[in-house]
C-alpha cells in the first residue's frame, strides 16, 4: 500500500460520500459546543423541525462569557447571562454526552476540558464552533473550527461538507534551549511562514523537538495552527499520547482500551509519505518570542528589536507595519526588552493547562510583580486544572507574587466577560491573538509564553526568562 500521511489516514477513514467535484461528506465523531456560536444553530434546528442526529457526540460547556471572580454573584452582564442560560436550556432540551455548565467542578475552556476528560481521542474527527479547535489535533484527531451554519449541519446530519486539504509537514528537529517552550516554537513557526502560510493545508508537526514536548505543549502548538492559516494541526500518536489518555473519564476501558491503543498506534505518517509542502526549523536556534504588532506573524526574539517599516519593500506590508506600530504605540528599533507593560494575562486555550501554570509559578516563586504592573491575571483553563494547581500550591505562589488567582474561563483572551484592557493599556499575554481590540478596545497585546509573561510581570517590561537566575 502507498505510504500515507496522518491527515490522509484520518480523512479516508471518515468519508461518507463524495460529490463529482471532490466535495466530501465526512463523518463527525465529537461535537464540542459552547454558548457563543451555538444558539443560532439550535434555533435553526428547531425552526426546521429537525432533531440532532447523535446527541451522545456532543460535549458542551460555557466558557467565553463566564466571569472569573465572584461566582457567588452569578453573571452580572445581562446579555452574557442570557447567552449562557440559552445554552443551559438548549442542552436541557436536546441532551449531550456531557455538559459542564457555569460553576460546575469540571467547567472550563472547551479546548481544555475535551482532552482532560478523554472526550478527545486519537482517530476522531472533532469539530467546534471555535477556530481553536485545531488544539485537539495534538491527539492525532482531525479537528477544526467551523461556523454556526456548520454547527447546525453537524447537529442535523453528523457530517460536514469538506474538500480535502493539502498537507504540510513542519519539522522541528534538535533540542530546545532552557526557557524555550512550545509557545515560542509556534510563534517562531508563524513568524517564518506568516499568518496565511498554512491556508488550505492540514499542518502536521513532527521532528525530535515536537516529540519531546508534553501533550500540553503539543496542544499549544496545534492550538495556534489556525494562526498560521491552517484549519487543522496534527501530531502523531506516541507513548505520551497513550499515557495521557489512560483512565480519563471518557477514555475506553478494558478490552476496548487494548483495541483502541492497537488502532491508535497506526496514527502517524508512514515512512516515505509525501507532503505537499515541508518547512524545517532548527529547535536550537529558537529563542523566547514576543510579538510586537497586531498580527501573530509580527514577532521577534526577546533579544531583538521592533522592526523598521522603512526597510520593507512590499507597500501593503509596509503600510500594515506602520499601522500596527501606530496602534501599538511603538517606535522602530526599540529593543523588545525595553517595552514596559501595564497588565499580564496568563490563561486561554493556548496556555492555561497545568504545565503552563507550573512554568509561570516557577518564575514567580519568591518574587513580586513590578509596581508599574497594575494587574496580573492567572486564569486556569478548567476547574480540574484549578484544583490540581491548588493541590500543588501554585495559587499561593501567585498570590504571594501579587498576581490574582481566578476562576476558569476564556477571560481576557477575547474579553467577552469583564476581564479586559482599557484603551492604550499594554499587556503581556499567553493567549493567541494580538489583533487590534482583541483584549479590549484600544488595548495592546503582546503574545508570549507563560514563563515569559511571568518574567514580564516581575520586571515590569519584557525580560529574557533565560537570564532570571
Amino acid at each position: 500500500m502507498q505510504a500515507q500521511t496522518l491527515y490522509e489516514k484520518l480523512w479516508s477513514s471518515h468519508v461518507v460520500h463524495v460529490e463529482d467535484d471532490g466535495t466530501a461528506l465526512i463523518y463527525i465523531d465529537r461535537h464540542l459546543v459552547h454558548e457563543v456560536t451555538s444558539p443560532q444553530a439550535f434555533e435553526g434546528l428547531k425552526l426546521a423541525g429537525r432533531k440532532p442526529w447523535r446527541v451522545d457526540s456532543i460535549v458542551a460547556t460555557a466558557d467565553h462569557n463566564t466571569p472569573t471572580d465572584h461566582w457567588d454573584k452569578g453573571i452580572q452582564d445581562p446579555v452574557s447571562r442570557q447567552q449562557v442560560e440559552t445554552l443551559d436550556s438548549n442542552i436541557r432540551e436536546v441532551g449531550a454526552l456531557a455538559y459542564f455548565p457555569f460553576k460546575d467542578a469540571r467547567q472550563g475552556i472547551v479546548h481544555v476540558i475535551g482532552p482532560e476528560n478523554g472526550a478527545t481521542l486519537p482517530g476522531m474527527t472533532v469539530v467546534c464552533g471555535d477556530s481553536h479547535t485545531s488544539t485537539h489535533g495534538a491527539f492525532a484527531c482531525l479537528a477544526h473550527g467551523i461556523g454556526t451554519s456548520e454547527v447546525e449541519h453537524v447537529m442535523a446530519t453528523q457530517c460536514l461538507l469538506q474538500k480535502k486539504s493539502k498537507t504540510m509537514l513542519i519539522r522541528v528537529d534538535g533540542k530546545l534551549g532552557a526557557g524555550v517552550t512550545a509557545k515560542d516554537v509556534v510563534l517562531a513557526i508563524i513568524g517564518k511562514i506568516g499568518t496565511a502560510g498554512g491556508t488550505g493545508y492540514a499542518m502536521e508537526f513532527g521532528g525530535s523537538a515536537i516529540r519531546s514536548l508534553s501533550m500540553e505543549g503539543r496542544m499549544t502548538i496545534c492550538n495556534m495552527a489556525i494562526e498560521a492559516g491552517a484549519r487543522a494541526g496534527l501530531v502523531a500518536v506516541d507513548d505520551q499520547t497513550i499515557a495521557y489518555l489512560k483512565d480519563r473519564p471518557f477514555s475506553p476501558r478494558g478490552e476496548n482500551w487494548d483495541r483502541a491503543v492497537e488502532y491508535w498506534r497506526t496514527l502517524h505518517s508512514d515512512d516515505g509519505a509525501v507532503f505537499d509542502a515541508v518547512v524545517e526549523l532548527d529547535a536550537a536556534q529558537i529563542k523566547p518570542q514576543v510579538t510586537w504588532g497586531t498580527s501573530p506573524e509580527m514577532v521577534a526574539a526577546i533579544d531583538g528589536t521592533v522592526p523598521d517599516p522603512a526597510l520593507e519593500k512590499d507597500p501593503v506590508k509596509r503600510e500594515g507595519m506602520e499601522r500596527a506600530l501606530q496602534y501599538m504605540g511603538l517606535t522602530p528599533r526599540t529593543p523588545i526588552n525595553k517595552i514596559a507593560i501595564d497588565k499580564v494575562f496568563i490563561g486561554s486555550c493556548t496556555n492555561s493547562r497545568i504545565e503552563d501554570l507550573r512554568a509561570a509559578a516557577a518564575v514567580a516563586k519568591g518574587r513580586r510583580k513590578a509596581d508599574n504592573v497594575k494587574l496580573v491575571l492567572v486564569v486556569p483553563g478548567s476547574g480540574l486544572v484549578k484544583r490540581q494547581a491548588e493541590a500543588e500550591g501554585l495559587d499561593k505562589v501567585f498570590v504571594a507574587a501579587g498576581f490574582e488567582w481566578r476562576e476558569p474561563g476564556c477571560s481576557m483572551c477575547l474579553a467577552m466577560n469583564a476581564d479586559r484592557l482599557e484603551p492604550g493599556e499594554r499587556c503581556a499575554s499567553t493567549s493567541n491573538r494580538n489583533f487590534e481590540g482583541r483584549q479590549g478596545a484600544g488595548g495592546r497585546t503582546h503574545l508570549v509564553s507563560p514563563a515569559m509573561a511571568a518574567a514580564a510581570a516581575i520586571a515590569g517590561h519584557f525580560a529574557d526568562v533565560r537570564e532570571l537566575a
Partner: protein
Amino acid sequence: MKPFTKLDGLVAPMDRANVDTDAIIPKQFLKSIKRSGFGPNLFDEWRYMDVGQPGEDNSGRPKNPDFVLNQPRYQGAQVLLTRDNFGCGSSREHAPWALEDFGFRVLIGPSFADIFFNNCFKNGLLPIKLAADEVDALFAQCHATIGYRLNVDLDAMTITRPDGKVIPFDVDPFRRECLLNGWDDIGLTLRHADKIRDFEARRRIDQPWLFA
C-alpha cells in the same frame, strides 16, 4: 439561504491585509443569540469614534470620517475589494452575517482565510479569489473612479469591469450550484441519510469506544 446569481454593484476598497474577524465584528456583539442585525456594527472599532455596545442605538454615535465605508462615495456598496488573508482569526459566522446585513454580496481579494471563506457561502455571500495583479488593478480603478461598479455573474463565473474587460473566476462547482439555487446544505446532505447510517453502523462495530 438567499440565492446569488448576478449583481451589478458599487465597489468599496478595504485596502489592508490580514483584516481579522475581530475587526469585522468585535466580540461584544457576539453575545447576541440572533443571526441578524449585525450590519450597524460591521467594523465597529474602525467605523465609530466611541466603543459600541450591543443593543445600543448606533444612529447617534460619532463616526470616523477617515474610515473608507463612511465616505459618501461608497454609500450603498455591495462589492468589497480586499487584500490578502481577509477574514483571518476567529470562526465567528457573525462576520459574514455582519457583511451581508450591511449590504455586501461579493468580496474580491487575492486570498481569504479558510473558515471565513467557507462561512460566506452559507450566507449568500460570494468570495472571489483573483490573482494579485488583477486585484491591484481593481483597487487602482476603484480609487480613481467615483461611482466605480463591477458586474459579477456567478453562472458565467465572470467579473466585468466598466472598461469592458472580462475577468473569469473559479468557484467549486458544488458551492456554485448551492449559491445559484439558494439551497440549504442540510437538506442536500440528508438525501444521503442512508449512507450516513451505514457508515455509522460500521463504525460502531470497528471502534465501539467512540459510541460509549
